């Protein structure tokens, strides 16, 4: 179910910088880790491969970097077949999760390494290393050893090293995974800025959906070796193509029931406790099918008007204070994990456990998918 999403506007007609065509990968000859991958990467974009651990993101990235050879299929870089080209002849910058700075070299020597390999003159090397160090705000650290730097600084150095030889394409495999939250957010911002300044194509791997949403031009959601959906962050969030994407990206309420009625644009589904709710059918659903409804917590209104297709009363199970907001856990249609978020301060935030409140949502905000194993 590879969905081909629209490419970012102006690049739409350009030849993609990378094309995966029918790529499959198996390590042991039995299990396919990457299944039928077709993917075009647009020149200059920030593409994120998002997915749970083990979904084949790193494998995909390593095939592009040249460290793994596809079992089947071809990979094109700038129109050239690089499927079997060794990594050192690809000219692709790679940033690894654990920085991979050479411990026996100073930060300056680390960054100079790709230039030294390419036989760049000493003065030019010095100039470009300095430029790269300034770019990642490490100007004063050239003489330090990697071990003398903090995690964030090491990651900056690794980034400078991957960028200093001006590759067209930079691959980043969970580069911020080892950093704490605050540092990670700052690095996300800096990385995005670098991307905009340098106009380099970046392919970014993460399992963190927030990171993917904030940084990417496009996101490819991986699961089980397949791209589940390839779309812009907004599109991915608003119009998930299947239950996996709906649940993996953003917060999500999940209601399971049987289809009792199908209309032109909406289906009616009876939940475990008999409540019937209406939602938009994404998959083709017929009467009697098991279906799962997916609904964002922020789309649930506590002041439903009559125009809402779904209005019901739900008892409050839990009240969780989050600082800027309060989360209410409600019992809806037999599900005890239905979450609603109200911004603070709000009188209703003092809601007590057991009280019932009125909630409602539009049928267009609620997406119905066929339950995976039915």
């Amino acid at each position, binding site marked *: 179910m590879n969905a081909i999403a629209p490419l970012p506007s102006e690049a739409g007609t350009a030849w993609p910088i990378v094309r995966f065509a029918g790529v499959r990968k198996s390590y042991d000859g039995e299990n396919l880790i990457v299944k039928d991958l077709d993917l075009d990467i647009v020149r200059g974009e920030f593409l994120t491969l998002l997915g749970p651990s083990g979904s084949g993101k790193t494998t995909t990235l390593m095939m592009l*970097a040249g460290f793994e050879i596809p079992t089947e299929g071809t990979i094109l870089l700038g129109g050239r077949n690089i499927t079997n080209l*060794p990594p*050192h002849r690809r000219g*692709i*910058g790679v940033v690894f999760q*654990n920085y991979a*700075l050479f*411990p026996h070299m100073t930060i300056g020597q680390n960054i100079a390494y790709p230039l030294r390999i390419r036989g760049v003159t000493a003065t030019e090397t010095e100039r470009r290393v300095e430029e790269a160090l300034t770019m990642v705000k490490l100007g004063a650290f050239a003489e330090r050893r990697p071990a003398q730097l903090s995690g964030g600084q090491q990651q900056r150095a690794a980034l400078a090293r*991957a960028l200093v*030889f001006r590759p067209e394409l930079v691959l980043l495999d969970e580069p911020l995974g080892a950093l704490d939250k605050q540092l990670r957010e700052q690095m996300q911002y800096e990385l995005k800025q670098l991307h905009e300044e340098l106009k380099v194509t970046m392919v970014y791997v993460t399992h963190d959906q927030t990171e993917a949403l904030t940084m990417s031009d496009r996101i490819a959601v991986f699961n089980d070796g397949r791209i589940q959906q390839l779309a812009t962050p907004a599109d991915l969030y608003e119009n998930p193509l299947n239950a996996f994407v709906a649940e993996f990206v953003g917060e999500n309420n999940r209601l399971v029931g049987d289809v009792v009625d199908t209309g032109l644009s909406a289906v009616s589904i009876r939940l475990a406790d008999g409540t019937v709710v209406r939602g938009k059918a994404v998959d083709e659903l017929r009467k009697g099918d098991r279906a799962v409804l997916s609904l964002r917590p922020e789309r649930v209104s506590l002041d439903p008007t009559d125009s809402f297709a779904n209005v019901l009363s739900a008892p409050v199970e839990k009240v969780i204070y989050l600082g800027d907001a309060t989360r209410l856990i409600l019992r809806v249609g037999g599900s005890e994990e239905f979450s609603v978020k109200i911004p603070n301060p709000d009188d209703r935030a003092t809601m007590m456990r057991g009280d019932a409140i009125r909630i409602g949502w539009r049928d267009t905000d609620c997406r119905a998918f066929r339950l995976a194993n039915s």
Partner: protein
Amino acid sequence: MQASLEMMGETEIPKMGLRTLVRRAERRHFMTMLALMAPSVIFVALLFVIPILLFLFRSVDNAEIPTLLPKTAVALDTWRDGEIPGEPVFAALASDLHALKGSPDAALLGRRLNFAVPGYRRLITRTVTSLPGTQMASAKETLAAIDKSWLDPVYWRTLKSQSGRITDFYLLSALDLQRGAGGIEKVSGEQAIFMSLYGRTLYTAFGVTALCLLIGYPVAAVMAAARPAVANWLLSLVLIPFWTSLLVRTTAWVVLLQTEGLVNKVLLQLGVISEPLKLMFNTAGVFIAMVHVLLPYMILPVYSVMKGISPVHLRAAASLGANPATVFRTVYLPLTIPGVAAGCTLVFVLSLGFYVTPALVGGPGDQMIGYFIAYFTNSAVNWGLASALGVFLLLLIGVIYLALGKLVGFDKLKVR
């Protein structure tokens, strides 16, 4: 009281008090460590350090002559080299030797003096047995009559130079030097064996270390890159020399390396050689056997360092444009240097002290310093010289360790 303590905690302790507290805590920690280590420290001190120091002291110890010839030692004080000593000196010697009559000490003295001048033992034995019991008119004439050698200044020079409690005789001998009429001089050609011995020992140790590195490095690299199951198998193979007894190993070498041995047979069959190679009881045999024994000591530290090298570093280098050879030269090799340094130090130091293996598979001209230490300790019973050789062996190891440490850094010489 409570309040004032709290106040101190807030304000005054930081400068002086804190330091005292930390120091006290450290001292307690140190004492605990000391208590835990005491058994091993005492064991090592009693059975290793002290015996070695005592043995090393023998290289300068000169108990025999001053205790067995006390009067002569005093009388010789005024004697000048080159002339025949006067009557008082002869009288003192006659008296000293007379006291040794019938005692085993006479043989001891003779053996000791014989180290310095060959033939001295015979001279002492004959003189002691022939000395008349009665008072003699002239001690000089009596002694000269017993043996003309007593009129040769060489024997007196030895006595005088060896009359102190401490002697440099053994240390000088171990450097092919001796005290002659004109001070310290080289010993004559065929007696000068030790300098070339150090040279040979160093050469063999260097050669064996280089060969071990050459053979061991790729093996360690393969082991480090292999799957765990395969790596364990390779490790057992590497460790087999550790588990086999010297006797079994030697027998194996004989079977393999002798003129009629397996290696020669196979090479002859293959037509690589037309007549058998001599692989035993010569330098080649020593090298083959020593490399065999010492290879694990090279492989293990190198392997353990290689195992610690993250393959991501190698990938990073490749992604930055380095071809495999460059990756090896600029990343892999430098990262393995600590292991190489540790392995080389270990193999080198161990090979400096080898003696059983060269004795078994080497020729007479291949023996190393250890062989001579063993020889002087067990066969020649010249503990002074054995100990002097030990001193220089230790010194050699110390100097090389320091030089290596300066070169690659001491922290890298550790085996981990």
